[in-house]
């Protein structure tokens, strides 16, 4: 089957990151940052980590699995809306669209945006099998870094936001047309820095249900 191994797409990630860093410095008179078709906020990673990990504790041991699923679903649903908005924005149209040679190139554009947002440092596509599977690596996920700092070594992967996100990317590219394609794919985290691995890795495939 045809597949893509990271590194040879036509996307200029630095250009995208620069545009986001500059755009995130512009506020309207209401103190709101409208960028890439969404309202952006800049806030400490510690806030998001407290929310995620205390939410799981707050749900108790019996419901911790449900809590993890809820966090992943919340991220997937929002990643789906967010990146749908992003790719319909004038910024995407002007800056990213001209770099896209194939539909699959959008993944690289999405990753550049996610990197610029400070979600995980360097991010790379390890393998993309169009319509079937996305395997990607994140070097410094703020979730794993935050978990290690707050709670020490974990037994399972802790990057719920990124798990939802990678599945959302596949939903947008290969699911039914927006808004009907969300949750077509689901993702697992195969390696996680919170477990002591050197980076975090995710694989998104078609959902079994």
């Amino acid at each position, binding site marked *: 089957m045809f597949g893509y191994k990271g590194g040879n797409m036509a996307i200029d990630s630095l250009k995208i990151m620069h545009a986001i860093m500059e755009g995130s410095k512009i506020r309207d008179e209401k103190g*709101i940052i409208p960028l890439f078709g969404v309202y952006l906020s800049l806030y400490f990673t510690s806030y998001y980590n407290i929310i995620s990990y205390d939410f799981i504790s707050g749900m108790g041991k019996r419901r911790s699995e449900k809590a993890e699923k809820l966090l992943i679903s919340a991220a997937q649903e929002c*990643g789906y809306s967010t990146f749908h*908005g992003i790719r319909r924005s004038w910024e995407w149209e002007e800056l990213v669209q001209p770099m896209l040679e194939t539909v699959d190139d959008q993944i690289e554009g999405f990753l550049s945006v996610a990197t610029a947002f400070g979600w995980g440092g360097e991010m790379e596509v390890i393998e993309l099998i169009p319509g079937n599977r996305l395997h990607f690596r994140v070097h410094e996920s703020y979730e794993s870094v935050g978990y290690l700092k707050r709670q020490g070594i974990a037994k399972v992967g802790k990057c719920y936001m990124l798990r939802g996100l990678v599945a959302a990317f596949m939903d947008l590219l290969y699911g039914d047309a927006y808004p009907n394609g969300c949750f077509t794919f689901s993702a697992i985290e195969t390696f996680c820095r919170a477990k002591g691995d050197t980076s975090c890795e995710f694989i998104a495939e078609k959902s079994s249900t």
Partner: protein
Amino acid sequence: MFIDWQDKLKRIGNQVVLFDIPITMHCHHYNINLQKMLEDILGSEGVRLMYKAAEESNHTAFKIMLEEYKRIRSDKSKLEFAASIYQHCGLGVISFQDVGPNGGRIISPSNHHVTGWLAKYGLRKTPGCHFTRGWIAGILEVIYDLPIGYFEVREIHCKMMRNTVCEFDVRIQRGQHGD
């Protein structure tokens, strides 16, 4: 007071930092989805979690920021500094006109969570600025050199409920009075 925001918001290696503290950019879809999930699943406990997370993270960060600007000495200047951070982070506009170590009133004519909530879900029947309440508590506790949890911030008017501004009432938490 001049703050070089270009220098303060930057990338260091793989991280995005504000005053060298790791930050992340999230949009209203994620922030509001988290809020809705917490409210729907945990109810008042979820609201409390959001408030405490904002209070704790802001308390830690604002202390570091003030350390860097030792010339900001008066309480009034510190409040102005806090308001400029709120605006710079895309959180909105906030006005600390009537507040002191014993509490007071604070107004926000616009904020990220109001804009985001209204865009996604429309009007609410109850106040919804839990993030800003916690954010305010964290700021005031640093400015007046008080421990986390000292203040209780309530929202008495909210734009998510069609009020013209969001208004917050700050009081000393029961059990925290010196008398």
